[in-house]
C-alpha cells in the first residue's frame, strides 16, 4: 500500500517507522523545516517538508495514488482540513485522523473522515475498563471499516510465550505478529524469532480474535 502520513511528531514518527518495517511505501509530510530535516536523517526519501493541509503539497506527495492518508498533527483543525482536501481533491479511498480533543470526534466522522483515532479516548476507555498497565492494548490503527486493527501488546509477566519462537505459537486465525519491540529495537520477526520477557509486540488482528490473542500472551 501507499500511505501518506502527515505530521512528524511522536505518533507520525513511530507510525512511519512501523509502516516502513511492514514494507509499505510511505511518505511522511512535516511542516516544520528543522523537524523535517531531522526526520530525513532517519527515513531518507520517505520524508517531505511541507504543509500537508495545502493542495500543492499533497499533489506533490502523490495523494492521488495514495491508498490511505493519515493525519496525525497536533492540531485538530489541520487534521480535518488534510482529510477533507484528500477526499475532495484527490478522492482518497481512506482517510484517518488523529483527534486531539475528544469533543471534535463527532464532527470529524460527519465531515468525510473515515476513521478517527483519539488517544485521549483510548486511555480513558482503558481507565474505565480498569485494565492493568501490563496488559494494555492500544489500537494504533483501525483499518477497513474497523474490522482489522493494528495493536500494541506487552507480554504479560507470567506469559507462557516467553522464550518461545514465533513458529511455536499457535496464533488464532486472523492474527499476525508483525513486529517485536524490544527496548529501542524493532524486530521484524521470522518464524525463528524468540520472544523474551518485557517484549512488546505489534499485531495485525481481526477484531473478533483480539481477545483470544490477548489471552494467549
Amino acid at each position, binding site marked *: 500500500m501507499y500511505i501518506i502520513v502527515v505530521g512528524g511528531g511522536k505518533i507520525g514518527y513511530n507510525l512511519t517507522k512501523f509502516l516502513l518495517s511492514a514494507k509499505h511505501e510511505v511518505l511522511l509530510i512535516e511542516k516544520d523545516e528543522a523537524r523535517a530535516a531531522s526526520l530525513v536523517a532517519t527515513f531518507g526519501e520517505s520524508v517531505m517538508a511541507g504543509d500537508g*493541509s*495545502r*493542495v*500543492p503539497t499533497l499533489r506533490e506527495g502523490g495523494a492521488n495514488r495514495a491508498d490511505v492518508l493519515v493525519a496525525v498533527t497536533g*492540531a*485538530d*483543525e*489541520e487534521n*480535518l*482540513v488534510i482529510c*477533507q*482536501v484528500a477526499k*475532495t*481533491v484527490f478522492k482518497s479511498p481512506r482517510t484517518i485522523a488523529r483527534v486531539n*480533543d475528544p*469533543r*471534535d470526534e463527532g*464532527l470529524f466522522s*460527519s*465531515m468525510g473522515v473515515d476513521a478517527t483515532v483519539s488517544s485521549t479516548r483510548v486511555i480513558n476507555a482503558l481507565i474505565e475498563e480498569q485494565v492493568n498497565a501490563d496488559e494494555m492494548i492500544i489500537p494504533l490503527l483501525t483499518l477497513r471499516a474497523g474490522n482489522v486493527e493494528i495493536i500494541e501488546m506487552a507480554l504479560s509477566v507470567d506469559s507462557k510465550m516467553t522464550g518461545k519462537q514465533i513458529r511455536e505459537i499457535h496464533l488464532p486465525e486472523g492474527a499476525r505478529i508483525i513486529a517485536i519491540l524490544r527496548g529501542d529495537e524493532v524486530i521484524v520477526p521470522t518464524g525463528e524469532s524468540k520472544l523474551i520477557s518485557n517484549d512488546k509486540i505489534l499485531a495485525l488482528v481481526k477484531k473478533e480474535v483480539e481477545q483470544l490473542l490477548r489471552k494467549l500472551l
Partner: protein
Amino acid sequence: MRIVILGSGRVGSRIANAMVDKGHTLIVIDEKERKFKALNEHQDIHRIEGNIFDDETSHLAFSETADVFIVVTGSDNVNVMVAQAIQKKYQIKNILIRIFDPDLADVYRMLGFEIICPTSYTISEIKKILGAVQ
C-alpha cells in the same frame, strides 16, 4: 439582522463597526480581550471573550438564532473547522468563511460553502489595474 463575527482583527472589527451603524446587532467573539480595542463602544456590539470550541462560548453567541455567521480568524484551517462545527451544532444558514489560500478556497466552495478569498481578490484587482495601464 443578528450577525455573529469570529475574529476581532482588522476585518472583523471593521465589519462590526460598519454594520452596527446600519442598525444591525453584532456579536463579536475573540480569544484575546485586547483585540476588542478596535471595536466601537455601542450598545448593539456585544463582545464575547473565549474559545468558540467551548460550549459556554458558543452558547452565549448562538443562544439566539444568528442570521449570518462571519468567520475571519487568522487561520484558514481554524476558519473551516469552526464553520463546520457551528453549522452542525446550530444549523446557521448563512456562513461566510475567509480563506487566504486560493486552492483551499476552491475545495470548500466545492463542498458548498460561501468563501471569501482575499488573495484571489487582490490578484484580480491587480490584474485590473495592470490591464488599465497597458
